[in-house]
């Protein structure tokens, strides 16, 4: 774009200049950006968009290729289906508010002029580069019945005998472990998203509010938070989509003790080699995260002028 402008500035009589370049090359020039974009877009279309649609085809067909609803009827009757839905939503309902509340505090802290800010930011963002599997294994060392949490509690004489946090029938314990591990892993992402939003808020607004005598808390609730709404909306959509897919952290901490929708998908595909059932679970996941996205778009709607600030 800049190149074009510079070229036309250098040669004001445009009409006179353009044909001079002439020939096939000149006629192809407008196509250049499309030619540059094409390989990437085709690749994405084939390996991302097409399979996303293809999942519906697999889910609504029998193994032999006949259209059917049978997979979804089987899905509803599946042993752990109800539990998987309940657990997925339970984890979501605890993790998302917890994460956004703490991540907001972290983002505000990281923006304030603390000494050692660089160090704090580094430590708070390192989980961006670890997997949910790693997070599950790390917290496993804390939550096993002979793990560090029980050891610490026993050291300070809070308990006499180890608590079986990860026993298959201790649902609150399993939920607690997964919530902590998953929050520990993904809170960095939420923090970075929120920080990128805070940085786009003009500092003059906060300064003006301060001059008018607003306290730090008042400035946060009346200036920062409202202007952060579009960022929070995008962050919530993003994080909810990934939270629906919670997988390896659950597997690492609970085995099959806490079935969720993504572990059910994997076990149908991997263990049972039943791709129709796996696709049915995946389609259900897509529907649920689409519904959540729609809900955020509807209920967190931002007036246009605020969005553009």
């Amino acid at each position, binding site marked *: 774009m800049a190149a074009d402008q510079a070229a036309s500035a250098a040669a004001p009589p445009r009409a006179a200049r353009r044909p001079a370049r002439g020939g096939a090359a000149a006629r192809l020039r407008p196509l250049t950006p499309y030619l540059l974009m094409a390989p990437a877009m085709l690749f994405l279309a084939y390996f991302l968009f097409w399979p996303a649609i293809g999942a519906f085809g697999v889910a609504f067909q029998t193994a032999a290729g006949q259209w059917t609803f049978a997979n979804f009827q089987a899905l509803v009757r599946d042993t752990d289906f109800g539990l998987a839905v309940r657990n997925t939503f339970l984890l979501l309902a605890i993790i998302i508010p917890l994460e956004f509340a703490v991540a907001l505090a972290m983002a505000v802290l990281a923006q304030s002029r603390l000494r050692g800010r660089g160090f704090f930011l580094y430590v708070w963002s390192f989980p961006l580069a670890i*997997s949910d599997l790693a997070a599950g294994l790390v917290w*496993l060392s804390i939550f096993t019945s002979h793990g560090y949490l029980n050891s610490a509690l026993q050291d300070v004489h809070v308990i006499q005998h180890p608590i079986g946090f990860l026993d298959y029938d201790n649902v609150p314990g399993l939920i607690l472990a997964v919530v902590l591990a998953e929050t520990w892993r993904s809170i960095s992402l939420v923090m970075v998203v929120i920080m990128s939003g805070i940085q786009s808020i003009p500092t003059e607004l906060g300064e003006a509010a301060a001059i008018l005598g607003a306290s730090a808390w008042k400035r946060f609730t009346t200036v920062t938070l409202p202007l952060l709404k579009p960022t929070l909306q*995008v962050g919530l959509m993003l994080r909810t989509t990934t939270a629906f897919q919670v997988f390896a952290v659950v597997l690492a901490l609970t085995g099959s003790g806490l079935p969720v929708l993504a572990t059910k998908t994997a076990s149908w595909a991997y263990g049972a080699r039943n791709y129709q059932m*796996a*696709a049915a679970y995946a389609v259900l996941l*897509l529907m649920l995260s689409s519904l959540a996205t729609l809900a955020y778009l509807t209920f967190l709607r931002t007036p246009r002028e605020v969005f553009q600030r």
Partner: protein
Amino acid sequence: MTDAVATRPAAVVRARHVDGGRLLLYGCAILITLFMLTPVYLIALAAFSTPEAIFDYPHPLVPTSISLDNIRFFLTFQGILPALLRSLAVGGLTVVLSLVLGCPAGYALARYWFRGKDAAQLVLVNVRAIPMVIISIPLLVTFIEWNLNDTVVSVALVHAAITLPLTILISASVFLRVPAELEEAAMSLGTSKVGAVIRVVLPNSVPGLAAAALFAFVTSWNEVFVAVILTLRNPTLPAALVQQLSDSPIAFRFAGGLCLTVPAFVFIFFMRPYLFNAFGVGGK
């Protein structure tokens, strides 16, 4: 400072108030830091303890016996080293694919205006909303048809698709920082457009493109679900760990957890300047 305190009592009150506030801020910051670092300390403690000490109870919370036995056991465990090499291969292939496909697209976004540009950018930003869970099943069916299932290439193709949107967006922001005038200067000295891009734009973009490559690698290195679905006998490291989870000794899992966590500190150290480009919303 002391003079001011002595002569102005009002300032004392204010200074103390501010100090209290700052103390609270530091307190919170340190608390959060402890929450982030304590689990890393504990998994290191578990992974570096002797195999016998893992069954001690209660565990001492300070290192008493340090040994590399657990780590050695993990790394020499059947299939772990090949899986590690496969993970590196998948990561490398992912980086190459996503840079080769992504840089031209990023250049188009940085330097040209074209019809559909806004739409393309919107799609690239929102692609993250597609659940990875949903694409893996149809792709598995496709790869089985192509006789490509359970291979490094199949996993790398999907990982490249996952990382490509981000690579395009990062490389576009990197190319934007190279002044177009440099390119024009090179062209006026006689190189072609392509020559200018290769000799002027690319050398000036190396640090940014390296960060984009690192992002692609880390995403691939950490990706579990697609790898678990697409591989069976030739798993990547995370997929191998998931396969072994239920019937591996606990020491194996702790050593694996540590080995998967430590590289993150190195990765993030180099990625710091680009965190907002990659994970933030909107902005540049």
